[in-house]
């Protein structure tokens, strides 16, 4: 931990960091097989052959559905049973799983985990004010590292032995830690907060081979006088401004890989690396299946997990089609993707800040919905629905501290209680907005 640590950074609740990283080792062959599976599917030119491989994965899913109390109850009500799911085409006859339903039945959807498996419950980002609790088994927690193996080879990045991975964090919590990472080529993971005075020095000391960040963190990186050059940069921002991408390319000569993931499903797709193919996200089959031909994302998890997901709707727009991309990818590609609506707030000094960096503040408070509007440079309006009276004070305190950490020295916050219907939208909630005169 750094010495220079302003008191107002302490807006994050205590994090539980797993230090027993040697328990990752038994999962190494699995991680390799995940990467191989993704590479194999991405190289299959024959759609029928690819579909047959995916159909074969439905057997494990059928078993998981049978072991899920929620799905058994749903199927009994609808006159369905897991055996009806023999091919991907059969999925269309099964009911969708809404995000709100998963939030309500978060403890009934999972199967009973294996006795030796240690599961955790994580909360999705606070994009609705009512985050989804997600049960994850050990492999769910490690899955991104297995996918990273595939992405590294896809991007043509060559990593040194024992690569160091940095999670460059621009969230207002200021959380930092370092842990070993046996699952990823015996490497190490360092979380570095850009809010700390010595962030650049620490980053230079670590010399990361792989760097994960959001646009705020990448913007900070671009502004640095001297920065280390990772072999691969990853971001899951969904909306990565082209000017930032260009500035980053000038500063850091490494491929920038934008991927789409949700807490509930894990990684779903990655944006094609070709400049002319921006906005085209290649699906991580065979781990997940995104139903083609619809105008929204509908996910079925084909990888075994304690949390079977059948036709899950994360609430994002987009259409999936079979694709043979010039980048060499064969498979299914998500186009017209519209996830989180981009929203930027302006600090009093004129700096833009990704409003989504504040979403994290809300997931630690019980409320049904919220909307934060920047009304003037230093004035915000917070609309909350379904929040307990006693919870509003601590929420505002935490939010004000987060705003101060991001550059608003004296933020003014007006709070208003509203009905949930006042904040309802047809698609995914859009909880951040900026009024024109605030810009």
């Amino acid at each position, binding site marked *: 931990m750094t010495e220079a640590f302003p008191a107002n950074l302490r807006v994050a609740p205590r994090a539980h960091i797993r230090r027993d990283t040697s328990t990752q080792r038994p999962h190494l062959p699995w991680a390799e097989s995940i990467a191989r599976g993704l590479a194999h599917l991405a190289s299959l030119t024959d759609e029928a052959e690819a579909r047959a491989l995916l159909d074969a994965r439905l057997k494990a899913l059928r078993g998981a559905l049978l072991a899920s109390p929620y799905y058994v109850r749903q199927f009994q009500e609808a006159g369905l049973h897991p055996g009806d799911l023999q091919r991907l085409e059969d999925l269309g006859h099964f009911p969708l799983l809404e995000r709100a339903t998963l939030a309500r039945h978060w403890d009934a959807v999972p199967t*009973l985990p294996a006795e030796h498996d240690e599961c955790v419950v994580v909360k999705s980002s606070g994009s609705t004010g009512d985050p989804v609790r997600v049960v994850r088994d050990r492999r769910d927690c490690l899955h991104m590292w297995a996918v990273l193996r595939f992405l590294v080879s896809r991007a043509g990045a060559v990593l040194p032995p024992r690569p160091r991975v940095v999670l460059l964090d621009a969230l207002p919590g200021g959380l930092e830690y370092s842990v070993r990472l046996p699952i990823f080529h015996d490497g190490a993971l360092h979380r570095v907060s850009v809010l700390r005075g010595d962030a650049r020095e620490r980053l230079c000391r670590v010399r990361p081979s792989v760097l994960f960040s959001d646009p705020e963190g990448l913007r900070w990186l671009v502004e640095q006088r001297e920065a280390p050059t990772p072999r691969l940069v990853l971001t899951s921002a969904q909306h990565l401004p082209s000017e930032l991408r260009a500035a980053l390319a000038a500063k850091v000569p490494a491929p920038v890989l934008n991927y789409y993931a949700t807490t509930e499903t894990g990684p779903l797709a990655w944006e094609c690396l070709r400049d002319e193919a921006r906005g085209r996200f290649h699906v991580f089959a065979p781990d997940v299946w995104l139903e083609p031909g619809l105008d929204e994302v509908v996910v079925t998890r084909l990888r075994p997990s304690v949390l079977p997901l059948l036709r899950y709707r994360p609430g994002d727009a987009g259409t999936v089609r079979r694709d043979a991309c010039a980048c060499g990818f064969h498979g299914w590609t998500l186009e017209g993707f519209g996830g989180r609506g981009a929203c930027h707030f302006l600090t009093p000094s004129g700096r833009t800040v990704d409003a989504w960096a504040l979403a994290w503040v809300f997931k630690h408070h019980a409320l049904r919905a919220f909307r934060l509007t920047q009304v003037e440079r230093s004035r915000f309006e917070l609309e909350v629905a379904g929040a307990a009276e006693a919870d509003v004070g601590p929420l505002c305190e935490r939010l004000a501290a987060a705003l101060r950490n991001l550059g608003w020295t004296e933020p003014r916050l007006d709070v208003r209680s509203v009905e949930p219907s006042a904040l309802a939208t047809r698609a995914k909630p859009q909880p951040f907005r900026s009024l024109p005169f605030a810009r």
Partner: protein
Amino acid sequence: MRFDIPTLRKQLAAAPIVSPFSHELAVAIICDTFRLANVRPPSRQDWASLEKRANHPLWKEQVVMLAHLLAGSSLRDDSAKALRKNADATTVLQHFFDEVAPLSAEMVRSNAFRQEEFLRKWVRALDGEVLNESAKESAKRLEQLDYRKAQQEMKRAEEARRKEAQRREELLREAQQREAEARGWRE
């Protein structure tokens, strides 16, 4: 006679049920199918004994749904062609209603899998075959679709899960108790 299941299902999708037939009309439609094949249809008494044998509330719904499927597609003509001249109508129906016992009219109307199961079980009751499928493939598909078997499987799975959860809860409780007792001794 080979039954074209996908085509039958398309025809049925194009002829949605506006209002259900009365039981008498449904019986008449089914009897007409047997007459078309020059097979003596079940008598009133036979229908009464079919109902008595079935002895469950879904039977009348199933009679109505069979009539809808026969009238709403080429199933009636195909069935007439498939029926052997020496077939016994009551035995055919008895066999069929035994097989579809857990299926409600709503399932057959709104659920693609249960409709397919209903159709295939009718084909099997007639000793018919399914187009582009070997007898083995048809049997396998029916096995996959069998809702009665699946219901039992779901019940067994639910029971096993409940017992396992109870066992773990008990183990956890015992461990907590052991820990509490040990702490007491140390103190």
